[in-house]
C-alpha cells in the first residue's frame, strides 16, 4: 500500500522568513509526483501563519529562476521562496 505522503518538497527560505520560521528549509509532504506553485503557496499559508500575513509578500524561484506563472514542480526541483530583496 502506498503511503499517503510519498515525497517531500524542500523549500529554501532566506532573510526575515528564515528567521521568523527558525529554519532555512521548509518541508512540504506531497501526494503526487508534481505539485503546482499555487498549491505550495496554499499549503505554506495554512501551516506557516507568518506567511499568510499581508505584509510578507514573496515569489518562488525554481532552479534559480523566478517563476511568476503557476508551474508544476517536483522534488527534484530546487525551490526557493524569495521575499522582497534589499541587496547593495
Amino acid at each position, binding site marked *: 500500500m502506498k503511503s499517503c505522503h510519498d515525497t517531500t518538497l524542500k523549500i529554501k527560505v532566506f532573510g526575515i522568513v528564515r528567521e521568523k520560521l527558525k529554519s532555512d528549509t521548509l518541508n512540504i509532504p506531497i501526494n503526487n509526483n508534481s505539485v503546482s506553485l499555487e498549491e505550495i503557496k496554499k499549503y505554506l499559508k495554512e501551516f506557516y501563519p507568518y506567511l499568510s500575513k499581508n505584509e510578507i509578500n514573496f*515569489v518562488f524561484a525554481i532552479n534559480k529562476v523566478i517563476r511568476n506563472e503557476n508551474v508544476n514542480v517536483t522534488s527534484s526541483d530546487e525551490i526557493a521562496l524569495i521575499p522582497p530583496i534589499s541587496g547593495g
Partner: protein
Amino acid sequence: MISITKDIIDQLKILEQLKDNSSGAVVFFTGIVRDHNSKEKVEGIFYEAYEEMVEEILKKIEKEISGNWNIKKFIAIHRIGYLKVGEISVIVGVSSEHRKEAFEACSYGIDNIKKRCPIWKKEEMESGDSEWVQGVMINE
C-alpha cells in the same frame, strides 16, 4: 569577473584587475555601510544571499553588459555576512576605451544587482535593536 564573497573587499586589488592599457576610462562604484538609516544610528549590517542564484544573475548581468556596451573589463562583487559601518558591501567596476560606456555600464550593473539579486539585509542598530530592511520585490 563576478562573485559573492564573505571576505573583506580589497578595492586596490580590484582597481589593479580593472587596469588595461587599452582602456582610457575606469568607473568604479562602491556601496558602503552607512552609520544611519532614516530613523536610527546603525552599527552594522548583516547580509544574507541565495548565493547560487546571485551568481547566476551576476553572470547574466555581466553578459548583458558585454552585449550592450563596448567595455574591456567588468567586475561585480557582493559581500555577505556581518559588515561594520564603513565597510564595502558591493563593488562594481568597469574599464572601457571611453568614459560614457564605463559610466553607463557601471550604473546598469549596480542598478540591476539591486533589482535582481536575491540578497537581504538586516540592520543592527546602536540601540541594540535589529531589523530586516523592507526590500523590493525581485524584478528578474
